């Protein structure tokens, strides 16, 4: 009797110890003994198959109990569609409910032009905040690839001032197709997606799963606002990292208590598959639900900064500067006037020399040179050694106003007052000084 391959394998992997003595070949026995052996084998087989049937029954009972417990704990229900069954938890957050610094009905009023700008997709400006589908998945791993399954799909949308969250759970691999089919149905009722890192991760993964389940659905074709990139542009300058949890804590004012760390989630789901203990999944549902709601308030927060609705408590002047730079780059000078106005009101007391420098630069780029000059003057007053302010102001005096004398005086003063210019900076200033000094005091403007 040859050894089973799997036992050999276990030895190769070092799992099994020394082999036991081999069985004596059956040929060595008499015919009578062989018949006895055969009967014995049949008896063993029937016992084994009965116990297998029992364990299958036990398994299906365990599954049923787990599903029932889940429904009770999470107040969800089983849904059946053409592709099978899955588990759904639907909740509604009333308009007046707070989420961090924000309130749902306020969050719903985000500006669509700003949203389109954040997504870099002008089509979005044609729609409303109610057309957005907020999406976040929980998966069996972070490695990506075909072997990673999004087992929980959290969806959110605004409707009549309230926020709805639907969470689709595949309680087992076999329920994935029905779950995806439901996602497809919901997605078909909305116009665009809002995610956090969904371009690189969630949508990519879902597309893979649609293909694997032979379902047609191209989520990638939907206009998509991925909040990660604009959040990094606008808020990243003052955060240690740009994870959603960090944004919640530092920006949105959302406090999570007893939140499950992301890395624990895959193993929880694998444990659920084996043990069917519904308590394993409760934290994951809550984690996912908060993610979806935070995406909605984050969208509103970013749009508010872009449209400079008002200086928010939770925002920093530099956020507006970063937003203005983003707008300037994407749409041109006129779009940033409003932000600059709002910032101008705040100026100059609270913002740093560095922020002023950025703001002055933005004024210059936006064609509002007088505002820029005003700022440069402020800056030179605060710090006569600020090379950029001195040199920008000197340039302005030399090339625009053509007041060479004033330019000369400015540079001379800076060179005598300040000691911290680098060699190059000092050289550049001295060069400019020689040039303006060699010209008549004021030029005739033609």
């Amino acid at each position: 009797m040859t050894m089973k391959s799997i036992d050999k394998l276990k030895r190769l992997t070092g799992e099994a110890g020394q082999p036991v003595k081999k069985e004596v070949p059956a040929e060595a026995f008499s015919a009578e003994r062989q018949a006895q052996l055969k009967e014995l084998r049949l008896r063993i087989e029937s016992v084994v198959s009965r116990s297998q049937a029992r364990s299958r029954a036990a398994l299906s009972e365990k599954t049923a109990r787990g599903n029932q417990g889940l429904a009770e704990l999470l107040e969800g229900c089983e849904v059946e569609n053409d592709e099978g069954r899955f588990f759904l938890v639907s909740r509604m957050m009333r308009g007046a409910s707070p989420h961090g610094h924000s309130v749902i009905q306020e969050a719903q009023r985000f500006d669509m032009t700003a949203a389109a700008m954040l997504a870099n997709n002008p089509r979005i400006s044609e729609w409303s905040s109610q057309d957005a589908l907020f999406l976040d998945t929980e998966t069996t791993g972070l490695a990506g690839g075909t072997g990673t399954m999004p087992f929980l799909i959290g969806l959110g949308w605004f409707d009549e001032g309230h926020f709805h969250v639907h969470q689709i759970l595949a309680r087992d691999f076999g329920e994935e197709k029905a779950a995806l089919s439901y996602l497809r149905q919901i997605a078909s009722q909305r116009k665009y997606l809002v995610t956090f890192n969904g371009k690189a991760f969630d949508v990519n993964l879902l597309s893979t799963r649609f293909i694997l389940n032979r379902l047609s659905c191209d989520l990638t074709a939907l206009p998509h606002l991925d909040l990660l990139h604009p959040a990094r542009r606008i808020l990243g300058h003052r955060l240690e990292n740009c994870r959603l949890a960090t944004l919640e804590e530092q920006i949105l004012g959302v406090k999570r208590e007893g939140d499950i760390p992301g890395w624990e989630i895959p193993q929880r789901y694998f444990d659920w598959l084996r043990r069917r203990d519904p308590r394993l999944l409760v934290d994951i549902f809550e984690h996912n639900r908060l993610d979806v709601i935070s995406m909605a308030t984050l969208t509103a927060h970013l749009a508010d900064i872009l449209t400079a609705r008002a200086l928010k408590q939770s925002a920093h002047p530099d956020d507006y500067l970063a937003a203005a730079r983003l707008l300037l780059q994407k749409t041109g000078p006129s779009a940033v006037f409003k932000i600059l106005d709002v910032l101008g009101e705040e100026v100059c007391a609270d913002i740093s020399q560095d922020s002023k420098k950025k703001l002055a630069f933005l004024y210059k780029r936006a064609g509002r040179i007088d505002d820029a000059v005003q700022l440069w003057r402020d800056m030179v007053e605060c710090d006569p050694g600020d090379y950029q302010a001195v040199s920008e102001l000197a340039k302005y005096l030399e090339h625009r106003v053509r007041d060479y004398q004033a330019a000369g005086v400015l540079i001379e003063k800076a060179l005598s007052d300040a000691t911290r210019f680098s060699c190059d900076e000092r050289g550049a200033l001295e060069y400019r000084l020689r040039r303006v000094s060699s010209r008549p005091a004021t030029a005739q403007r033609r």
Partner: protein
Amino acid sequence: MAKLSLEEWVARLKKNKSFTANAAALIDIPAKPADYDDWPDWVNPKLRDMLQKRGMERLYRHQAQAVRFIRQGQDVVLVTPTASGKTLCYNLPVLQRILDEPETRALYLFPTKALAQDQMHEAHSLITDLQADIKTYTYDGDTPDDARRAIRRQGHIVVTNPDMLHAGILPHHTKWQKLFVNLKYVVIDELHTYRGIFGSHFANVIRRLVRVCRFYGANPVFICCSATVANPREHAEKILEREVALLDKSGAPSAAKTFVLYNPPIVNRELGIRQSAMTPARKFATDLIDNSIQTIVFATSRLNVEVLTKYLKDKFVKTKPKDDHFVTGYRGGYLPNLRREIEKGLRSREVMGVISTNALELGIDIGNLEACIMTGYPGSIASTWQQAGRAGRRAGRSLSILIARSNPLDQFIMENPDYFFSMSPEHCRINPDNLLILLHHIKSAAFELPFEKGENFGGENLEEFLQYLEEKGVLHRTDERWHWSAESYPADEVSLRAINPENVVVVDTTDAGNHKVIAEVDWDSAFTAVHDEAIYMLASEQYHVDKLDLTRKKAYVRKVDADYYTDAMTYTNVRVIDSFENVRAGGAIVEHGEVQVVRKVVGYKKIKFYTSENLGYGDVNLPEKDMHTTSYWFTIPRDRLRTLDFTPAEVIDGLSALAYTLQHLSAMFLMADTHDIDRSLGDKSGEWFVSQGKTGRVITSFANGRPQSASGPEGPRIDEFDPTIFIFDAYPGGIGFSELLYREHANLLAAAKSLIAKCPCAFGCPSCVGPTLEVGKTAKEIVPQMIDLVLGKG
């Protein structure tokens, strides 16, 4: 002095008496004319015109036949020599099909990135001339991320390597939907390189590829190309698991070639020592390069490449002091940029001499070299012809010289030139159902697509494996399907090329402020090449290894100018785990089965350059390496050995000598690489084993759980164990050699006896029982008596 042409050089060589005295054979292979066939009428006129403009007026007969077969959807394996135009055999039907149906996709697989680059350029230049909108790209680890998306969607011909297919493409097949849905052709070039462990992995990658294709409803035609091996069709069918048509009659013309088998003279008849193969290699190469004949020298090891490069550089430094690349080394550890530079230099003839390991054996484009010198038999007939093929790829006479070393295999070739010239080359052997390899790929396949009940994968019972993986928690069964249910990415857990995918980087600390990585060494070689105190040689510079840091995977070296190099000493200890079959034959018990092999590097020798004098020893303290594999072995009971009229020390030496002979002959019997098998002498329990120490043979006993010398004051004893000779597969899990050897046991021993009887040496030499310094002066006398004992004729 006027320079000689190769014709003149060969003519002069034939008149040289000291050469002819040592030439075991000199064969002039005549040129062969071309055999043409007509263009098939379905070939797109644009395509035909383009090829005709490139000088392909007509197709060679084998090309015409190949494209017809492929057109009909027949899977093929093409076996034709280098430069016989085999790339056209696949490029033509692929391009034709893309012209017919622009959605068509083709996947080209090459064993190395360098070859893939070469072939992408070739296909690209055809397409440029064709002025067609066909896109071809390489896809490998170096492909930038932003280019990958475009390649996945638009690439008509994607050129990649098996490692990338395994870890980068198949686990992300949904991103490649467009390619898989339209995949019509899969080209596998250099099929013969997929043998042994690499081939066994590769066959599984193909299983996975076919499985993914099936998911997308694709059933591509497989086009394989191979160098000349004994079993191309069988090999292709084993890899593809389907019937394949064989095309092996080349219609291409070939140039005249002179092939010399050269056996260096015996310098010490007493000890049976021949001149080192390196000496004539250096002389021939110097003289050829002096005559402006571009020459490639193949050496059998990394170390020999470096030693020879140093010798030749020393020689030419006087005439070409500034030209660092006039002669140069080339091997796997060199960084890619340097390698590209050398390849370019060879094509432009700025590099006139290159000394290489078998890294240059495959079809990397290095232009037409004129002469090839092989320092030592490359281990297989197929490799020998491949290496010889690097000289004279297209036209004119070429020269190949094979210089023998003093080992039984090389000497056998010299003694029997007819065997070499008439024998069909080696078989490619793989074992795709090696359990460890299969397990890895079942995991990877489950990650790619869930397994369904009733599905097959490999030759073992799939469901057993699936259940095993389910128990491990890696798979989860739902109804009739097994789904991947772990966070890991299984393709990253295994490298196709070696069991251990780790590398050690070599860091040059000569300039304290500027540490530089100068090379990489694979994990297994690191133990022998860059252990503490070793001399590591790279581009003929010597570096002293100050520290090998295994946890950080770094070896810190500094440049030195030493007059010696180091050679590591290892011991091998084998323990039987399971005997699959056994038989009492004559005076021995012969078995094959599964064993555990423990190896350890224990020290090194310092060897002086040029004189090869032994300058001393050093100790090395590195962990053991442990491997399970399959082995053939036989045990001679100690009381039987006592009947021989020799001292115990002589008996032990004799057994070692017998093992030496058997290992080399086994390689011949199996028609395998000598590196694929290894030997050991000990007992079945692994408690006793014999190794070569600093001062002679020592027996080590593990009786108290610790290794200790079991040699008493009178020398080794053999009254405490039954000596066993193991000849084992050098790969974990084995690739099926041992059962073959078990069946050939009697023939193997008879051949050993005859080899020893025919050997002209007095007391034994490296060509029969091993060097007398290692096996003692009585080995040649005792081994035939032992063989009689084993065969039951004593």
